[in-house]
């Protein structure tokens, strides 16, 4: 009996590992596809990276010379091959507009977005789960309708608009919280004290509004469905206490809720161009919008690639976590 249990644990670990390995291998073509698409997208967009770095009245000859210096005169496949070749050597190139290494720019910005994303997630997920569960448990009551209204509002209200409103109330009128930036001296000397964290409050709350709505709606639906299923009635019939029954319900809801939250975290990690712009937060969304306006190809390609890979990795983590929690997923 003892040996069998050990074998089962071994088998289960091995299956999760194989599953993980298969997913990692599947990630490679996805990553390649992402790199090709982001390279091509950037090339298709009208505009020219040289406009950001040369005066408008630079002559055609001067532009041609500069194009050659930056390698923009080479055929697209060659440019792609150079880019991907350098990427494999860990070199993401240099920003055309600033000359700074793309890796430094992207990872610095991603760190700031991570800070914002996790703060928003810490606010959004517990609130979303709590509200959703309340609504599901007390289905078709006033409480349910109130939670549904909150979650629909969360999903529907344009969050950049909400950001502006929060700034007007809490920064301009009340003067309680700063309206912009990632700390009194910028993001490079971030510390976990109130002086810095107060900069995080408004953008994190604004960013949390959409996931609160989505998570609440998902959990409400899950809890509502599960609570009416036969196994719940059976558990009550067996004399199980309400708390223990709810634990079973939570376990059954976990896999789906986790996947929704994982995707939401992925979106949050991508950084919100609008929120980061409204709050002047130096994250990846802010960086991306600058890179787009300046047609800074290496920076744009690097940022999109890193964000896309983050998203793919997030999906992978969620899938593996789901498989670990719910054996049915592995079998499928």
């Amino acid at each position, binding site marked *: 009996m003892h040996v069998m249990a050990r074998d089962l644990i071994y088998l289960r670990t091995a299956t999760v590992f194989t599953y993980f390995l298969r997913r990692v291998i599947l990630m490679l073509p996805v990553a390649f596809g992402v790199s090709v698409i982001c390279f091509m997208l950037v090339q298709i967009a009208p505009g020219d990276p040289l406009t950001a770095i040369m005066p408008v009245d630079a002559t055609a000859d001067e532009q041609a010379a500069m194009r050659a*210096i930056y390698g923009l005169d080479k055929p697209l496949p060659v440019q792609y091959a150079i880019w991907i070749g350098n990427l494999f050597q860990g070199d993401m190139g240099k920003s055309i507009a600033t*000359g700074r290494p793309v890796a430094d720019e992207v990872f610095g910005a991603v760190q700031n977005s991570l800070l914002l994303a996790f703060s928003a997630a810490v606010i959004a997920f517990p609130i979303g789960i709590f509200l959703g569960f309340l609504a599901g448990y007390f289905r078709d009551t006033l409480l349910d309708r109130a939670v549904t209204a909150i979650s629909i509002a969360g999903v529907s209200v344009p969050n950049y608009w909400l950001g502006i409103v929060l700034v007007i109330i809490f920064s301009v009128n009340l003067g309680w919280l700063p309206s912009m*930036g990632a700390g009194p001296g910028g993001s490079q000397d971030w510390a976990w004290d109130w002086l810095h964290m107060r900069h995080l409050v408004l953008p994190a709350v604004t960013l949390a509004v959409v996931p609160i709505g989505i998570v609440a709606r998902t959990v409400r639906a899950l809890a509502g469905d599960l609570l009416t299923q036969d196994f719940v009635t059976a558990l009550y019939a067996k004399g199980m206490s309400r708390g223990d029954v709810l634990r079973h319900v939570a376990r059954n809801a976990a896999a789906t809720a986790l996947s929704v939250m994982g995707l939401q975290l992925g979106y949050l990690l991508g950084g919100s161009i609008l929120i980061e712009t409204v709050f*002047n937060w130096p994250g990846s969304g*802010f960086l991306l919008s600058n890179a787009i306006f300046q047609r800074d190809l290496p920076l744009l390609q690097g940022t999109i690639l890193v964000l896309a890979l983050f998203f793919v990795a997030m999906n992978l983590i969620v899938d593996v976590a789901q498989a670990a929690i719910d054996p049915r997923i592995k079998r499928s």
Partner: protein
Amino acid sequence: MKHFKKGVATLLVAASLCAQGAWAQGTLRVGMTAADIPLTTGQTDQGGEGMRFMGYTVYDSLIEWDLTSADKPSALIPGLATAWSVDDADKTKWTFTLREGVTYHDGSPFTAADVVWNFDKLLDETSEQYDSRQAAQGKSRIPAVASYTAIDDYTLEIITKTPDATLPYQLAWILISSPAQFEAVGKDWEAFAASPSGTGPWKLETFVPRERAELVPNTAYWDETRIPKLDKMVLIPLPEPNARAAALLSGQVDWIEAPAPDTIPAMTGNGFVISSNAYPHNWTWHLSRTEGSPWNDIRVRQAANLAVDREGMSALLGGLMIPAKGFLPPSSQWFGTPTFDVRYDPEAAKALLAEAGYSLENPLKVKALISPSGSGQMLPLPMNEYLQQNLAQVGIDVEFVVVEWNQMINLWRAGAEDPSVEGAMSINFTYFIQDPFTGLIRHLSCDLIAPNGTNWGHYCDPEMQGLFDQIKNTFDAEEQDAVMRATHEKYVNDALFLMVTHDVAPRALAPNVKGFVQAQNWYQNFSSITME
């Protein structure tokens, strides 16, 4: 005696604190419209704003703009060069006498060899200090320069490709970085960017890309009247207008560039001060002069100029514009006395159009390129829609081709004949018109017809070309100003553009910011500012 000594010591400490107090005048935090800290290595990016905050602050040029007066247009004054002259016999040979006793922020002395080194930085791709980013910004600013030599430590000779009296204006663009600092940081411009060194009135102390730059006074600056009174000036990129306004209103910054017109009542209502002044900025429509363009008819061009209700547009912008009376702002030293009066007279416009064969029933139909936003564009969509309405009322039906600003710059460089402009017969562009080249020559010179330059409309006229040649060959500054005026008169009399408005560079200041004098220039002097 002991008490006396103590008393003297206390007095001395108090006096020294007072003396410090004379310099210690607080920190000014500025919200810029740029999305990044302008290039810190010398030749800046981010257009006029880059030069304003990171160019003429940390660096000097040989010849500079006088930024001391709000009442008159700025003129050129000596900078790192104290005097300059052109050879009587050979008008391509210029001699510059350089300022002695100037040191860079790193302590090394400034000499003529450094100027040569800085020209190589921009023009000589084989030099170790060649920097493609600075070259991209700087090379096209000095098209006249053929060669340069240091005659001795304080004498520089520049040879131009052809006689060109606009050379001093060109040199006002070129900022001098420290060769010793470049050497000290391992001959690496990226390292130099983090700890730059120039000779300017401000030193860069802290630099966080995309977030902030902190400048402190250079107390050893060669012009004592321009040693900054502040302790510190902090530059913060705040590209989003609402974020900029909120940062000012919530006290996170003390100064913002270009407040949106609709936020201004909230600011003035809360005691903030709006500073503005005329400066050489232009918001205009360039007209296609290619074959078959309706704008080839002077009656149509004049009619369009008479159709625009500029006062009405001013109301739209909360008064923050100067209605155009010509191509240059009316206060410009080069405005002259044009005979065509740029005014709102729709009846006269209709009469001119009728002569040209158009009417309300049979309107002229034209396509126009516009952009929803962009550098110096003010509020392009409502302004252009206003123009569209004005023009429709006299019999000109305008169809807009709307493109994003980066692409707009490409179309501006491509010119009116390029297929990418989709048959548009005009382009709404905005820019710097501060010197003879940017102000007049580049727009209409035959040799700068797009894509070779920014003569977008393909205009070429022998009389105008003659005036441009005269500007380049008139070496006496006053006489050159007279030719500039004659050129501008022709611009206006021939109604060569749809002349609409000039921006007034509004900036909003907290009530405790004192001592700022807004010069009629793209650049400003921040040395006189104090915080109360």
